[in-house]
Structure formats: structure tokens, C-alpha cells
């Protein structure tokens, strides 16, 4: 009995195009998994059974579409109806056929499906955070455009059959929308091919499909829904308006900032209204996105930037001062020279007047005396100024020493302590104004000779 049944099944399987052995194997696998589940091993199994079911359906489906025209008609009729319904209808059809042919197979299928649904229930009741959407079964390809494509494919196969009888039929079929270039190319002659406008892909922007997908996954964000569930804010006006030039980094970032700020303000008030905690209390410590090490780095970077900026400013100031200092010096010298010239001129005129006065009237008047005093003062002041460079010898006769002496004094120094005058002190050793890095690096003026090796040194130095 059992053997006969097995043979029957095998023959059925061959007829249906289903490898029965595989089915059995799969079933075994499933059983083992079920056992594991019972044992408490949490294995997420949902995808595999779902796929299996799909796989099992597929061959049967294809066979059906080939041999029965009725099914095609059904599908054509229901093209506009929802996919799910389509699927169920297909399942029903399948079932009906199965009932006709073999009850055993049908029951097995049924069992599997019920098991599947059990699994799903199990999952939803488990403590996982996510509820998976139920997978929408699709016949091989997508949802929207699959039905026409399937139709066209079927038509093509039909066409292929027809082509043997008469090929003229093909060209009349102009109403076909999506004929591939290659198909046409095969059929047309070379002359005709030249006339053909190259097939340009149009922009795909399927609004209905996009909106359908949006509706399917859409999360409610309307005014009736508490804000805390989604926390999304849409800006009051498009941010693009406030970006005149996308390449302008500053403007662009400012616009982004403004958008985010608006959202933060709106979001904050909405959340506080709902009584959701918003601000982090000061005594709440938790792990941050950026670790302390990273923040330290950021801080170091900031400090470095600031110091660099400060140093640069200081250096610039110093440079400016140097330039300005020279100007001041030059101006001072000029002023001094001018003052000297003026005094000398004054003296000259006074001397002239005096000489004239003495020549005209020998009897000196009081006024003349007074005048003389003024002249003497002027002369003395001038002498002091000139003598400030070379110090006067005490007890020497008044009046400047001769030019040679003055020169020599200026050159070799005169008066004062002469010892240690040229030795270095704290100030002189701290003064690096004469130091030049360039000269130091180039190896001095003469260029110090590199120290030779010991043997050569000894050879060059001679005997000691």
C-alpha cells in the first residue's frame, strides 16, 4: 500500500515538475528546526519557510500558465485588482487543481501553511522590538509593472509560434508599447534600421507607485499624533531660498543652521508641552557620542589655533614697530640737525651785530652788556651740545680741544673706568640681535672645516 502510494506520488511529481525528494528533504529540515525551537534555541526562521513556499509555488504556476488558457484570462481580468487578492486566487486555483489530482499533496501543503502562520504568531508574541511587515508575495518581479510585462512575455511566446506561419503579422502588432530594440533589430532590414530613431529611455518617475509605497510604509506624523513618537519637524519655508549660491560655504551652512535651529525651537516647545523631558540635568552623566579623548583633542586643537593666531599677531606688531622705529629715528636726526643749523645761524648773526656794535660805539652800555650775556649763553649752550659726545677734561682750559684730540677721544674713549669695559655681562649675553640663523646654518663666514678622521688628523698634524 505504502509503496504504491509512493510510486503514485513520484509520478505526480514528475508530471507537476516538482522534485518530490527535495520537498521531503525540506520538510525534514523543517521538522528538525521545529524541534530546535521547542528545545528553546531561538532561531529566526521566518525567511526560509516563506521562501520555500514561494519556490514550491513557482514551478506549478509556470506550468499552469503554459498549459491552461483559462488561467491567463483570469489574470487578465483581475489585473487591476490588488496583488494580495491575486495571490490568494492563485493559491485557490492551485488548491483546486491539487484537490482534483491528489489529496495527499494538498494536505501536506495545508499543513505547511498553517505551521507558517503559527510561526508568525510566535514571533509577534516574542519580546523583539520590531514588528516585521508581512511579506507581500510577488510573482518573480515587482508589483506594479509585472502584470503587463508578464502579458507581453506571454504574447511574445505566442508570437514566436505565429512567426513560423506568417511573419507579416508581427509588423501589424504596433500597439505593443514595450518592444525591445533588439527584437525589432532582428526583424528589420538594414534600410529600415537607418530610419529608426534610437530608443531613448525616458525619465522614470512613477508618481503612483511612489505614493503607494509611501502609503504602505508611512508613519503617522500629523497633528493628531504625539510629537514624541516621530520628532520630525518640517521647515516653514524651503531652505534653498536662503542659499543664493550653493558653492558659498558660509551662506549654505548658515541656511542649514537656521533650518535646524527653527526645528530645535519648535521641537523643544512641542516636547515640553507633551511633558517629555528635554534638557539633560547637570547631574546626569552618560556615555557621549564623542569620547573624552576625542574632546580633549578638539580642545587641544582649539588652543593651538588660538596660540598660533596670537603669535602671528604679535609678530606682525613687532615687524610694524621695527619699521616705524626707523622712521622715528630718522626724523629725530633730521630735527637735531635742523636745530643745530638754526643755533649756528643765530650765533653768527649775533656775532656780526656785536662786532658792528663795538666798532660803532666803544663805550659799552648796559644794554650791550645784557646783550653780551645772551650771546655768551648761546655759545655756551652750543658748546655743551657739541661736547656731549666727547667728555670734557676737568680742569682743562675752557673751549673745545683740537679736532684731532676730539677724534681720538671718540675713537678710543676718554675718561671713566677703562677696565672691564669690553667684557660681557647679563645684558650683553642676553642680547641676540647680532645672531643670525642663516649665517649660523650656512656654517659661518669662512665655513668651519669639517673635522677629519683620526688617521688623517694625525697624519696632517705631524708628530707630536
Amino acid at each position, binding site marked *: 500500500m505504502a509503496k504504491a502510494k509512493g510510486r503514485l506520488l513520484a509520478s505526480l511529481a514528475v508530471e507537476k515538475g516538482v522534485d518530490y525528494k527535495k520537498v521531503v528533504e525540506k520538510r525534514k529540515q523543517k521538522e528538525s528546526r521545529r524541534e530546535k525551537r521547542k528545545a528553546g534555541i531561538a532561531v529566526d526562521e521566518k525567511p526560509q519557510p516563506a521562501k520555500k513556499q514561494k519556490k514550491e509555488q513557482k514551478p506549478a504556476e509556470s506550468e499552469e500558465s503554459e498549459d491552461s488558457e483559462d488561467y491567463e484570462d483570469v489574470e487578465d481580468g483581475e489585473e487591476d485588482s490588488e496583488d494580495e487578492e491575486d495571490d490568494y486566487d492563485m493559491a485557490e486555483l492551485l488548491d483546486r487543481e491539487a484537490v482534483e489530482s491528489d489529496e495527499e499533496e494538498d494536505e501536506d501543503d495545508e499543513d505547511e*501553511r498553517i505551521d507558517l502562520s503559527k510561526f508568525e504568531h510566535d514571533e509577534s508574541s516574542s519580546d523583539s522590538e520590531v514588528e516585521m511587515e*508581512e511579506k507581500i508575495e510577488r510573482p518573480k518581479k515587482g508589483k506594479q509593472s509585472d502584470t503587463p510585462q508578464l502579458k507581453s512575455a506571454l504574447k511574445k511566446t505566442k508570437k514566436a509560434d505565429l512567426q513560423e506561419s506568417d511573419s507579416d503579422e508581427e509588423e501589424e502588432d504596433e500597439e505593443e508599447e514595450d518592444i525591445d530594440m533588439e527584437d525589432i533589430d532582428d526583424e528589420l532590414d538594414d534600410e529600415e534600421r537607418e530610419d529608426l530613431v534610437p530608443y531613448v529611455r525616458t525619465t522614470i518617475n512613477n508618481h503612483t507607485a*511612489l505614493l503607494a*509605497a509611501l502609503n504602505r510604509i508611512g508613519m503617522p506624523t500629523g497633528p493628531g499624533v504625539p510629537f514624541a513618537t516621530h520628532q520630525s519637524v518640517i521647515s516653514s519655508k*524651503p531652505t534653498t531660498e536662503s542659499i543664493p549660491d550653493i558653492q558659498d560655504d558660509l551662506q549654505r551652512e548658515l*541656511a542649514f543652521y537656521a533650518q535646524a535651529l527653527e526645528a530645535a525651537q519648535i521641537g*523643544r516647545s512641542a516636547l515640553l508641552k507633551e511633558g517629555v523631558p528635554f534638557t539633560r540635568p547637570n547631574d*546626569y552623566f552618560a556615555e557621549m557620542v564623542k569620547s573624552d579623548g576625542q574632546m580633549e583633542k*578638539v580642545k587641544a*586643537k582649539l588652543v593651538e589655533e588660538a596660540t598660533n593666531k596670537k603669535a602671528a599677531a604679535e609678530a606682525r606688531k613687532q615687524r610694524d614697530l621695527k619699521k616705524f622705529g626707523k622712521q622715528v629715528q630718522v626724523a629725530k636726526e633730521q630735527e637735531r640737525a635742523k636745530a643745530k643749523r638754526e643755533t649756528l645761524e643765530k650765533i653768527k648773526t649775533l656775532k656780526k651785530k656785536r662786532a658792528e656794535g663795538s666798532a660803532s660805539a666803544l663805550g659799552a652800555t648796559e644794554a650791550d652788556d645784557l646783550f653780551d650775556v645772551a650771546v655768551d649763553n648761546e655759545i655756551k649752550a652750543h658748546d655743551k651740545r657739541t661736547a656731549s659726545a666727547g667728555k670734557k677734561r676737568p680742569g682743562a682750559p675752557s673751549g673745545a680741544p683740537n679736532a684731532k684730540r676730539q677724534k681720538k677721544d671718540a675713537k678710543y674713549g676718554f675718561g671713566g673706568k677703562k677696565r672691564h669695559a669690553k667684557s660681557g655681562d647679563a645684558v650683553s649675553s642676553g642680547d641676540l640681535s647680532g645672531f643670525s640663523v642663516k649665517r649660523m646654518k650656512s656654517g659661518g663666514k669662512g665655513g668651519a672645516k669639517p673635522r677629519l678622521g683620526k688617521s688623517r688628523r694625525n697624519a696632517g698634524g705631524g708628530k707630536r
Partner: protein
Amino acid sequence: MAAVYKSLSKGSGSDLPKERATKNKQRVLILSSRGVTYRHRHLLNDLASMMPHCKKDAKFDAKSKLYQLCELADLYNCNNVLFFEARKGKDLYVWLSKVPNGPTVKFHLQNLHTMEELHFTGNCLKGSRPLLSFDATFETEPHLKLIKELFLHTFGVPQGARKSKPFIDHVMGFTVADGKIWIRNYQINETEKTGKEGDDADKSKPKHKGPKGDTEINLVEIGPRFVLTPIIIQEGSFGGPIIYENRQFVSPNQVRSELRRTKASRHNARAEKQVERLAKKGDLGLRTSGPRKATDELDTRKVFA
């Protein structure tokens, strides 16, 4: 039996949307392909650190069989996938997908700056829920609406997520400009308007009491920064028909080849000129190897031979 199955499956199908409406439950599988650079990897880590509802997985091997990601996501009980696909060790494509049924959006990622290299002073709690700020442009086109929804699912941390923190301290900004989506991340910094340098105890008091108009909000950028260019939207999850295609998108390969071509054209022009010059010289008989000019009867060499 079929009827039983039908009723069972239908019952479960009709229950689901109602439940989803009440509670926002999302989990994101976040992973990259092989061949990502360190910057791509750092960006992935940055994003993962801000998404407590994500599951980071090892690098995914295949680049062509992306539909396997659906199964992987199912295995991890995730209903969103954020997948970084690196090409040629320099181009990064980002896939955002809802798992069982789609849709899937493919982006090209550019102008990438990770959190670490930006050196911004902003910081936020790890796992705090972000405020998502969308540009108004997102509401204008259906494909942008869809992209916004996907961002909302992926980057928005669901309420009561496992490792999320109870306070809100950062904003994530999504802006459409120049056909691209610019993403920024800011810390929310609240300061007292009146006493700016007030001591901490004084500062915290009014905040606990509730909304008051005297707190001033300013933002400090945290990072990372990047720009996404949508390329296509598929209806299914890593498969299915393409329902949107961005015609403005120019593939980086094309850009590079164009650059190379312009460079090559310069060289070609120069090489052509050189050949021309040689030919001209040859015609004039000025080249040693070329054909000699036919000697004239009155040529100097002939006359004075």
C-alpha cells in the same frame, strides 16, 4: 483547508497596520560592503553611535546579490537596512531600504567628513533621540516624500528604544539643495537669556519647572557631514521595478572618464601637430630620412659642380 488558511493569513494581515499606527518600532541593520575606505568605515561608526536602534553587522561580501541583505535583516529582526556599498575603493553608494517589501533608495555619497576629522566642539549623549529637521522641499515631490519617510524610519530613534537616553540634545538636519540632500548634525545648547554667566544651580531650576521663554537655544555642530544624491528608487527591497530614476545624476565614473578624455584630447592635438610638422618638413625635403626634393637644372650645386 484553503479557506482556513485564507482566513488566518487575512486576519494577521489586517491586524498589522493598526498596531503599527500606535507604536513606532524600527530597527536598522547597518553594514558595509567589502572595500570601504577607513573614512567610510568611520562614517558608518559615527552613524551607528547615534542610532541605538541599529544592529551593526560585519562587512557584506557580495555586491551583486544584494537581495540577500533582506534575509540577513530578517535574521537580525531588522526592518530597515542601511548599506554602504563601496566601489573602486573611492565611490560610496548608500542603500536605504525597508526590508520585507521595500522601497529601496540608492544614494551616491559625497563630501564626506567624519566626526573625528571635523574637530567640532559639539557633543551629545550616545543614544539620545534626535530631532529630525526636514527642509520644506521634501514635501513637494513624491520621491522626496518617500526619501523623507525612509530617513524618518532610519535615523529617527523610536520612542523607548532599548539603549536610547531619555533626553533630547541634538538635531539632525536634512536639506535639499542643488538636487542633493545635505545632512548635518547639531547639538542643542540651551543658555539663559538674562543671566548668561549665572551659576549652574540657578540655571537648572527654571528648566525643570517647564517651558519658559527666557532660555535661548543655540546650536553647535557635532558632525559628521555628508551629501547624498538620490539615484534610483526601487519598489521592492533590493529588487523590484525602478519607480524613480534621477536623470541629473552623473556617475563618478563618467566624470572621471570625461576628465581623462579632456586631458587625452590635449595630448592628441599636440601629437597630431607634431606629425603634421614632420610631414611638412618631409615635403620640403628638409628631413634626412624623407624623400629628397627633385634637383632643379639651375640648382647651385648643379651649376657649380
